[in-house]
């Protein structure tokens, strides 16, 4: 009895090994880095699961590339060093393609491009999004982002406060420490629709500056991994063509986030 059980177990193990081996051959293993604090693009839910546009797109791309993907969450500030250190193989975290970042990592083509915007409390006296409108005000943004770069470069007559994640500037605009915040319009709209964001409204969208904002959000990979980049680019084109992108897009937005 015991012996036969052992044989069955050994056979099962052998089978699992051979099957696993066969799977590994045609399934590319990929680790995807994301931030998990940037709803509705990527967010870590209370139960520990990752949800959002970036996550769904990443899953669709992995399916398209026949890759076995695993998600890793990582603080924004350290996300590029972690990629370089090999903690994961690609960053799918709404990372804008910029010159500065391109010195350290390679990017795929964009997978979406939405404009930045400025939000402020509902009773604000801020009328527009120009430097003059914000003079003397406190402007908040997430640090190490295109939005913080834009705020620091544009609102030179204002105090610019930089936060580690979007969650913290949301707390501070609620408490009144900052008068306005700059971020992606989608992120702001998503937040304004919640109870937390009931305080505030969009003052206006900001026309993207190519030198600062770049062509949109892309997937960052380590330098020189051209094969992987081409695979991602082909997968982005494929899900754009086969309607998968539109399906995900419509789940989150009422317009095409891919941009023109």
């Amino acid at each position, binding site marked *: 009895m015991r012996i036969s059980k052992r044989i069955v177990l050994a056979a099962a193990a052998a089978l699992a090994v051979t099957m696993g081996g066969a799977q590994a051959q045609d399934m590319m293993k990929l680790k995807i880095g994301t931030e998990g604090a940037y709803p509705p693009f990527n967010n870590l839910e209370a139960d520990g699961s990752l949800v959002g546009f970036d996550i769904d797109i990443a899953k669709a791309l992995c399916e398209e590339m026949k890759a076995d993907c695993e998600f890793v969450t990582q603080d924004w500030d350290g996300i590029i060093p972690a990629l370089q250190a090999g903690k994961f193989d690609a960053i799918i975290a709404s990372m804008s393609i910029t010159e500065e970042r391109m010195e350290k990592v390679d990017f795929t083509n964009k997978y979406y491009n939405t404009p930045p915007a400025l939000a402020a409390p509902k009773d604000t006296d801020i009328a527009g999004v120009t430097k003059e409108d914000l003079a003397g005000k406190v402007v908040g943004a997430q640090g190490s982002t295109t939005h913080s770069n834009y705020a620091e470069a544009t609102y030179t007559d204002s105090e610019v406060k930089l*936060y580690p994640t979007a969650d913290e500037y949301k707390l501070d605009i609620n*408490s009144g420490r900052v008068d306005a915040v700059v971020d992606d319009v989608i992120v702001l709209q998503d937040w304004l629709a919640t109870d937390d964001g009931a305080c505030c409204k969009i003052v206006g969208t900001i026309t993207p500056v190519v030198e600062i904002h770049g062509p949109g959000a892309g997937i960052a990979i380590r330098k020189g991994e051209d094969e992987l980049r081409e695979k991602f680019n082909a997968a982005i084109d494929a899900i754009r063509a086969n309607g998968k992108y539109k399906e995900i897009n419509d789940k989150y937005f009422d317009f095409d986030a891919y941009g023109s």
Partner: protein
Amino acid sequence: MTDMALNRTAVERPPAPPRRWTAGRFWGNAVVALWVLIGVGFVWYLASSWNPEFVEKYGPRYWSGLKVTVSLVLSSLVAGALLSLPIALGRLSKNRYIGALAYAYIYTFRGTPLLAQVFLIYYGLGQFSNELKSIGLWGFFRDAWNCGFLAFTLNTAAYQAEILAGAIKSVPKGQWEGASALGLPKLFTFRKIILPQALIVALRPYGNEIILMIKGSAIVAIITVYDLMGQARWVFSKTFDFQAYLWAAVFYLIVVEILRNIWAWIEARLTRHLIR
């Protein structure tokens, strides 16, 4: 005469024992050599990657960050020292309730992370901005620097109180009794007899606490106070160059080294009557 004296001293000293290469001595030297090598490599790296553009562009940021770190730590240490005195006395009090209160304070602030305290005071109290406005305290709490200062002061007061209480307890009871026999008032005894002796004991732990505070202060960047570490992170986000952190480390090292020297001097001064 001189010859004789010389001879005598030569005879009196036993010959130095031969220094053998024991395992301990070998490994000790090996480890020190390794440290020296790492230090040299570190300096060599900084020297070889010396980039005038980097220094010119980001130097002022480091300088302003250094000023924020030093001013924040210094002011909260002084405020914490003042606050620690009543807490330490409470800790030593014979009254059970006062003792428990002081103990609870120290227990809370030593037992929870400084990061959580900073976060709670800045973002936590920020939730009650309307209530704080109505009692006129919002002006203080609105400013991130003030919140950092308050959190550090409360935190370091707990540690300093414990150091001080321990040091005061270490002074023999006979000192109190002697002073009392001489008819000296209690407060005078405490100030002139007990405290100076206690401070000798407390000096090294105090030095440790200050060094820990300097390094602990690196977390204030999460509440948007751009101290030395915050500036280093900012520079890193622009350059993605690890040099940014290396320079921050060098500046922290310099501050701690200066402090170490000051401390050595204070100790020499406080204990000069003990030198034989």
